[in-house]
């Protein structure tokens, strides 16, 4: 019942300077909150992309419940949330369409994330980063999600929005036994949020 990274190695094509990741092992159990900390440029974002299937490793594999992640079709049970929410939503679509495009989202989530119904009619440009991030979280928390990879998701937000979002996410993860991988450069934040911290070497 776990998310496993086995011996992950990855290098970006056409870039000469070595691999971004070399032989990374990581196991995340349901209900666990794992913090990733490393100086910038050590492939934290790349690891998240590999774990959620955005990229494929050059060597090694990502397993969910012992099955390769790539064998899961449709909605991926491992979802990544990005640092810049404005790049993760289509600028030409109303947010309501973006939110529901892959399937239904529980109203309960919209309430808990303080997404106002009027926002569904807006375009991304008309909302702030914090408001857009709530949409990205809501659509990732559809039924069937098991793991959330949070890559600096509040780094660009103000402190109050940051506290609001984590307040919600921790509660949701506890109730639904979700596993979280949290990337942040803020060690105090990681200490506050995580059950364990995994240094990426």
């Amino acid at each position: 019942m776990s998310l496993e990274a086995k011996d992950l190695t990855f290098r970006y094509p056409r870039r000469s300077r070595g691999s971004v990741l070399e032989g990374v092992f990581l196991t995340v159990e349901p209900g666990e909150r794992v913090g990733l900390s490393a100086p910038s440029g050590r492939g934290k974002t790349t690891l998240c992309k590999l774990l959620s299937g955005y990229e494929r490793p050059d060597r090694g594999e990502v397993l969910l419940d012992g099955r390769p992640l790539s064998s899961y079709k449709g909605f991926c049970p491992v979802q990544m949330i990005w640092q810049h929410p404005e790049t993760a939503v289509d600028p030409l679509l109303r947010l309501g369409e973006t939110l529901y495009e892959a399937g239904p989202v529980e109203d309960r989530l919209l309430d808990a994330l303080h997404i106002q119904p009027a926002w569904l009619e807006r375009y991304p440009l008309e909302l702030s980063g914090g408001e857009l991030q709530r949409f990205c979280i809501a659509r990732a928390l559809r039924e069937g999600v098991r793991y959330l990879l949070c890559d600096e998701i509040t780094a660009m937000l103000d402190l109050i929005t940051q506290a609001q979002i984590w307040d919600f996410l921790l509660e949701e993860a506890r109730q639904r036994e979700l596993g979280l991988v949290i990337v942040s450069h803020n060690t105090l934040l990681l200490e506050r949020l995580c059950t364990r911290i995994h240094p990426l070497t």
Partner: protein
Amino acid sequence: MSRWNQRKRTLALLGCAALLLCAVTVAGLLFQPLAMETDFANKQLAPGPGHWFGTDWMGRDMLARTLTGLSLSIRIGLLTAVVSALLSVLLGVTAALGRRADAVISWCIDLFLGIPHILLVMLISLAFGRGFVGVVAGVSLSHWPSLARVIRGEVLQLRQTTYVRAAERLGVPRGRIIRRHMLPHLLPQFLTGLILQFPHAILHEASVTFLGFGLSPEQPAIGVILSESMRYLTTGKWWLALFPGLSLVLVVLLFAALGEGVRRLLHPASAHQ
């Protein structure tokens, strides 16, 4: 600040240009019989009150002939621009979505761009038996590559955007991604390409016809009119070429202004000026 903002002015300009072009098209259709009517009593008249654009060597009214020619040009332009723009989108999107298709289509684009346009139009037109069909086929089959290349590049970029990748991971079907995340983003390129294709198509239609590879000589097309006028220019019948030529330039400029206006309205960098 003036009372009319930039967008209103652009829209007004677009409206005027479109209206003028429609008027020319309709007038051309109405004047078609007059354009063919010969009157040997009044041949080779200089521009005057009865015939504003003068008459030709068979006494046909040049104003009617010019309007009919323009009308024909605009209709051919419209048809070829639509056909070639649709072709561009189809090929551009296909190329961007499959690696092998990309190799084939990119090769075709390079091939078509490598041959001089006018030569290509002539060859295709000949192959299709000249006439209306030949010209339309020639112009539309030769004008897709540049727009197709733009669209291919655009789709390749869109595929790498975080929101398209995220939609894939969220399980949105591929068809819906193309329909909702790609086509709307291609619309500005498509519309601008479509409208800017017009003047090209019209000019090429006129030139192949002028060279004798396009429409048949009895049709009052601008190319035919211009090529006939060449015989009389040396004897001082300047009006035979001047007015049809000038009005062709005017129509082309109108279309170019239309395209520029649409581009300005749709392009994010200038949309709010």
